[in-house]
């Protein structure tokens, strides 16, 4: 029960975290000055103007965001490629946060067909060493399956497992365990990454 609560809390945290990431900053439109006293027509016109301004601002923000993604440096792209994905206890199922992390890698891998990636599965320390090696492998394989389903060539992705032998953090609480249940990514040939065309 305690563990279930912890998992639930984590799931909630990750959803909230994701939401925060996805939220676009939409500038509040400036109030429109009017010398006349407001009437129904002018209020309607004002609302229409505000709506139009808001849409225009959102579109501008979206354009800027798209343009910004094109301008990501090779280092920023590499950081996306190496961003880890995390798993639930004794599971290899990809959570929504893991899928989002992997989805962000796909366009970069598509834009850089010379890049290969070694995927390494890790576990927390709670299981047995031998089973954890197998579990880590299953996690790496699951990640590879997801990326190949998104069109990445099978031959560009290798999998391996280090089981529980290389924890990302030390500790015996759920927060440490969660950080250790992960897949890591080691790209090769990724020195001059080009940004995907949007």
């Amino acid at each position, binding site marked *: 029960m305690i563990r279930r609560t912890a998992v639930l809390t984590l799931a909630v945290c990750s959803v909230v975290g994701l939401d925060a990431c996805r939220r676009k900053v939409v500038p509040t439109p400036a109030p429109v000055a009017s010398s006349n006293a407001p009437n129904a027509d002018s209020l309607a016109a004002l609302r229409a103007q505000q709506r139009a301004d808001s849409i225009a601002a959102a579109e501008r923000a979206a354009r800027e965001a798209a343009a910004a993604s094109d301008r990501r440096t090779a280092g920023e792209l590499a950081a996306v490629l190496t961003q880890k994905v995390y798993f639930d206890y*004794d599971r290899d199922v990809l959570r929504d946060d893991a899928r989002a992390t992997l989805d962000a890698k796909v366009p970069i891998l598509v834009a850089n067909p010379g890049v290969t990636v070694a995927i390494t599965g890790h576990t927390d320390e709670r299981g*047995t060493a031998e089973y954890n090696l197998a579990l880590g492998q299953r996690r790496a394989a699951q990640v590879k399956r997801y990326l190949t389903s998104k069109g990445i060539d099978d031959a560009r992705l290798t999998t391996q497992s280090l089981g529980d032998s290389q924890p990302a953090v030390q500790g015996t609480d759920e927060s440490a365990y969660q950080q250790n249940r992960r897949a890591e990514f080691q790209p090769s040939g990724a020195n001059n990454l080009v940004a995907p065309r949007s």
Partner: protein
Amino acid sequence: MCSPTARRVLAAAVLTMFVATPLAAQDTTSRGVRIGLTYDPGSKPGVVVLPVIGATGDSIRAIVQRDFDYGDRVNALVLDPSVATEASRASGPNWPLLARLGAAAAVQLTPTATGFHVAVYNVATKQTARVTDYATSAPPMSRAWRAALHGIADELEEAFTGVRGIAHTRILFERGKRIWVVDSDGEGAMPVSEVGTPVSPSWHPNGRMIAFANYIPASISVLDLGTGRARTLVSGAGVFISPIFSPDGANVIYAHGADEGVDIYTVPLSGGAGRRLSVGRGSDNVSPSFSPDGRRIVFMSGRAGHPEIYTMDADGTNVDLLTPLEFGENAYRASPDWSPNGRLVAFQSQMSGTFQVFTINLRDRSLRQLTSDGRNEDPSWAPDGRHLTFVSNRTGAKQLWVVDIETGRSRQLTRGTTVRLPAWSPRLPAE
């Protein structure tokens, strides 16, 4: 005082209270090996190791005395120095004193130019029961010299109880990116593999060769302990885990997987391609252990959604769930090891967020919990089918411990930096 018949009945009653190992083991003892000591049934024969002459005398006596003690089948009577001197006189053993001490037998070891001269005295009959000369050319206090003494202790235990001791055995384990070995009494711990990523060592039945897996590069290696030479048996993409030798020593069984789960494979020790045995359908199947007759394999599988212990025929057919599946509970049972007498499988099971060592009886599937203090895991049987070594953090760092499953008595085997994944050897050849 019991009549002989009453004594036999009592002995039978006492034996049935325990696992029937002693009785069965006695039945297989060759005629003439055992000396007919007189001691109360159900108790352990008291044995005095008499003071040993020479510069290495104290060491010889301590080693043999400790072997008897660790074997848990002999009551090694440790005497005060003054009493010990009294027990052994120039004219021979002090029979009345030995009888008063409760000794059924006394052992006199004497180092000679060619090895050891060993006399065994039967206290009840006041006679010399056995005189044997053991040859060894090993320098005193060396590893091989200690091994020779362990071998003598094992033979004496067989003479006293009908069951050969396990003193001349060793335990492999993983420590700090190497495979290590330690003598059964905790002495002589030393690394045997190069620094790398070795994991899950196991013994060839001849005791001269070991196998282990490597994380990187993912592979199975075999290592000749005599020459120290290692060779890669199988390697490739994915993981290679938990190799063991078949009881005939001709094949290595291991777990391997890349993109579609982890299954159990077999490969000839002479080399070649691995052949898949288990059909895990994407699940994890690891940690195999053979039944002593080589017909069945016990292993751990996550095929039911969480790790449980299964058995299958050596060809991968006739899979059977061994441990009771508890619905609604996310049980985690792992690391099975089939006992050398074939009756029990030791394994680890999750209990209140940690692991404890259990045995399951293959006849009635009854479970028995052997540990409760700290996290206890990775059990491995001694060749006597009575002792288990396992990893425990009960005193802090993970160390190897040994438990006698009949009395529950346990002792710490290793000290120092953390260890894991022990494998107890078969009885080893003389060195």
